[in-house]
């Protein structure tokens, strides 16, 4: 039962639940990157799932992911762009090499992490979405292009721009 036929629609309860478990967190995180507000992101993500359920007959499992993203973005379309957004992160320091983790090293790392988060706030929405979806949600440029309905080239350009902005901002702090 774990393998669902891709052409199946999402009208069945179990299929719908599987789609929810697979994509809810991703969609909700994407909306947090967009709005910077957890409550609103979760509300919008839930609404997208309601709309998916209502139209379940015309959406195959394969298409569910992009359908959810398109729906959520359309809902937010009429609202203003959010260019100055504060996203609250948790930093997960990876314990790769223990001997490196001297107190000074940790402090320096923490300091840089704070700078990075500050710099992220100044990214314009388009660049921020691409950068964070790639870095935090591990979505490839191709996957991001499909979700945002833009070309891979455009995703690469936004990523490049985002890095230029981050580099400049971090230098200024």
């Amino acid at each position, binding site marked *: 039962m774990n393998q669902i036929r891709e052409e199946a629609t999402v009208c069945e309860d179990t299929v719908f639940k599987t789609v*929810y478990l697979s994509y809810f967190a991703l969609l909700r995180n994407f909306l947090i990157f967009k709005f910077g507000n957890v409550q609103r992101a979760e509300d919008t993500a839930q609404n997208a799932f309601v709309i998916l*359920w209502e139209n379940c007959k015309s959406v195959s499992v394969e298409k569910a992911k992009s359908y959810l993203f398109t729906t959520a973005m359309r809902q937010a379309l009429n609202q203003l762009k959010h260019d100055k957004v504060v996203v609250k992160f948790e930093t997960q320091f990876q314990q790769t090499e223990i001997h490196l983790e001297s107190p000074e090293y940790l402090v320096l790392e923490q300091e840089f992490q704070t700078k990075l988060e500050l710099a992220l706030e100044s990214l314009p929405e388009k660049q921020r979405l691409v950068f964070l979806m*790639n870095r935090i949600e591990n979505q490839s*440029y191709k996957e991001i292009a499909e979700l945002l309905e833009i070309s891979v080239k455009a995703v690469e350009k936004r990523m490049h721009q985002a890095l230029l902005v981050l580099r400049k901002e971090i230098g200024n702090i």
Partner: protein
Amino acid sequence: MIQKANLSEQYLSDWMSDQITDAQFQSLVSTEDFIIYQKIKSGSSQLQLTPPDMEQNWLELSQKLTQTQKKSQPKVPSLWKYVGIAASMLLLFGVYQFFGYTQSAIADIGSTKSVLLPDKSVVVLNSQSSIAYSKMFAMHRKIKLDGAAYFEVEKGKVFTVKTAYGEVEVLGTKFEVIARPDWFEVTCFEGKVKVKSGKNAIILTPGNKIRIIDSQVEYQTETIPQPLWITGESGFKSVPFYVVLHALENQFGIQIQYPEKYKKVIFTGSFTHSDLDTALESICLPVKLQYNIKDSKVVLSETALNQN
């Protein structure tokens, strides 16, 4: 500048996705920039969001669904709808019977258990371990494992072992999987074994093992032809001491108290399954601890020699 244009306009995004190497990238930017970009790359991979409460969100979503359904429902529900529901419940039950994990086997404390699967593959379960699989196993070789087990898989379609850590996939081989709460380990004894956890996957060849303890990933080699516990012993190669003690607790159904500072001492050695005293002796001697057994509780303490 000409070189930059030649390579790619988006050399930053190319480097970020490893389409160009560090060396290639380094030739495009100053050393100072390179260092900062590298920090951005590693720093951003460590950022995370607090994950959503999936149950709470599902609850809220379900409420929204019933609200919208009420609006659009006809006033007199048709009988056919209930017939439909009953039929689909029957169908789901049938599907569960066939594909759900309805068959299971458990090895109790202190014992191992050998299980012959419908496809003639053999699983040997170590103490306090269990497996579950569906009635359609022969068609769909998927098995759930909680604990430690040694597998000898018959050649055929993909054989998947699901654990809390990820999946292990093989075609026909001999291998061991340990999926305890504090310890994940896969050892390949014959053929090839694919270990998948999230988006990462690696392939093990005979004599190699991967181990995850405390989210630390280690690769090691193994020279013995099958796990020691099959022949009534548990063997360990450079693992933290507490992992050894947990295995001992699982094996004999006892509880062990020990000095906190020994928790992460690295241990290599083995213990027998036949006798608790001998087992305790063989793990206490190397680390210079003494033991005291009271009912099902064992207390390890430092010897006078060790305290100084």
